[in-house]
């Protein structure tokens, strides 16, 4: 919870967390931002309803970017456009361009399953599958071609340790995941996403369905993942955004369509926003 320290210091403090994963597929971290997701003029419509209008935004490698703004301003739509979950919505039309790692995700040759392996997602409601804890982790791994039992076990242990769940569940991996508490379930969902070794994690209000203590645990986990993964998090909890994010993007509804009002360093957005709307929202005067 070190929101006011300079960004580089946060990254360094994240290193002492005893990770077992290999080092980040290297790239400069936040002090020298390098875009990993480039969004250009993204427009998103559901039938006649425009959810997002001409959003242009770069997400930087290894950083935590928080998307803030009132309900219905297109934050979740923005998030699900990045891993093409919007494909599931029948009348959803997307304009503009999204590039992940330099590759346009909407071209014919882009493989959506490979994209979703690279871009993991965690939802608001903890949703472990109604299977054993072990199988929750092995199912997606098998689907992506990891079939050796020993390898699956090793990865499972690794990601469970990374989310701090290993000590809590190592003696009951074969019990049903639904028997875990809400916070544990959400950490299992994060572990499940991490098991596929993604570069990017999209998080849609991952803490808002949890009690304050579990929420704190998950929040700490997220900030420990900084530097290792590029994280885009939607949150309604401004204090949380302020605590964990390096960058913040503020969305607002104009003429019933979501717009990006302001994007910048977290500190900048929260302490000296350039836009009046942002200032009003941050201070609680609007929204």
């Amino acid at each position, binding site marked *: 919870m070190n929101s006011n320290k300079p960004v580089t210091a946060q990254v360094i403090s994240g290193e002492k967390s005893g990770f077992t994963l290999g080092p980040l597929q290297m790239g400069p971290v936040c002090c020298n931002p390098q875009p990993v997701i480039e969004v250009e003029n993204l427009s998103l419509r559901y039938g006649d309803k425009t959810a997002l209008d001409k959003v242009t935004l770069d997400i930087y490698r290894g950083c935590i970017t928080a998307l803030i703004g009132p309900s219905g301003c297109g934050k979740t739509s923005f998030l699900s456009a990045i891993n093409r979950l919007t494909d599931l919505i029948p009348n959803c039309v997307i304009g503009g361009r999204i590039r992940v790692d330099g590759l346009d995700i909407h071209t014919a040759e882009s493989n959506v399953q490979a994209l979703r392996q690279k871009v*993991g997602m965690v*939802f608001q409601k903890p949703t472990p*599958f109604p299977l054993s804890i072990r199988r929750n982790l092995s199912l997606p791994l098998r689907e992506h071609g990891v079939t050796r039992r020993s390898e699956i076990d090793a990865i499972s242990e690794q990601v469970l340790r990374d989310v701090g769940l290993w000590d809590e569940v190592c003696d009951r991996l074969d019990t049903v995941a639904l028997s875990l508490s809400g916070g544990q379930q959400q950490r299992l969902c994060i572990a499940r996403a991490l098991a596929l070794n993604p570069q990017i994690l999209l998080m849609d209000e991952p803490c808002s369905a949890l009690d304050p203590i579990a929420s704190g645990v998950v929040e700490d986990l997220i900030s420990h993942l900084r530097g290792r993964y590029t994280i885009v998090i939607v949150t309604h909890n401004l204090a949380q955004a302020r605590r964990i994010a390096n960058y913040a993007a503020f969305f607002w509804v104009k003429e019933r369509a979501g717009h990006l009002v302001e994007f910048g360093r977290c500190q900048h957005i929260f302490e000296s926003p350039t836009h009046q709307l942002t200032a009003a929202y941050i201070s609680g005067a609007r929204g």
Partner: protein
Amino acid sequence: MIWSKRYILFPLKLTDSLLQGILRVGAVISALAMLLISLFLIVESWPILGQISPVRFFTDASWHPLEGAYHLMPMLAGTLYASAGALLLAIPLGIASALFIVYYASPRLAKWYKRLVELLAGIPSVVFGFWGLTTLVPLINQLHPPGASLLAAILILTLMILPTITLTAYSALMAVPVEFLLNATALGLSRWGMIHGVAFPAARTGIIAGIILAMARAIGETMAVLMVAGNVVQYPDGLFDPIRTLASNIVLEMGYAMGDHRAMLFVSGLLLMLMLMMLSGMAGWLGRNRCA
């Protein structure tokens, strides 16, 4: 957890106690019906059950009830072969149809296909039998006489239980929370990966309930089977041999049976009921909800 408790104590109000009374009466009536029917079956079959050992149903030389030979095994085997064959065909077909409706068909096609299956469920069994007698049996006869056979019974039963399995599997799959599917998709699972890895385990209890219903219908079905199965009391040597099921036997002989013979038919009914209870108990045990 408190919500896993069936009974939550509320202070009783007048409407509550009224409703409770009505529900109680309903429950008592259903329970009584079950008890009375069982009692009736036992009372009616008592003349023979009290007289000879039930072992003889399985060891007598043949089914000649007028001469005191009460071998039930061929008919029991006929019932089991026909039902098992029908389930073997209808379970994969029904589940595949349900998967098709829920996950693969376009919305319009799914709607029409589902309506068609619902219509199939609405065809009376005697019409199935009629169709089987005039169309299916002659067809099988061309393949291998006599036509009226175990195979005909299996095919007719398959058609009759297919909609039950399809529609219950459909409801079970539709009840799978959309979050599971979203999560599975977000993890990059293929459609089939999502279906067999997530949707299927989540819908398992419902699908098994449908299979139990279908099994009960297959075992108890009388009219349609009677019309196409040939009704010879024998162990079938193959699919083309005629069979007689326990249920058909009751209908065929009830008209003229008297005394011990009549009691014997009630014993067959009792046996059918016991068999169904055992099988559904078994299926329920196999399908017990491991998530609970």
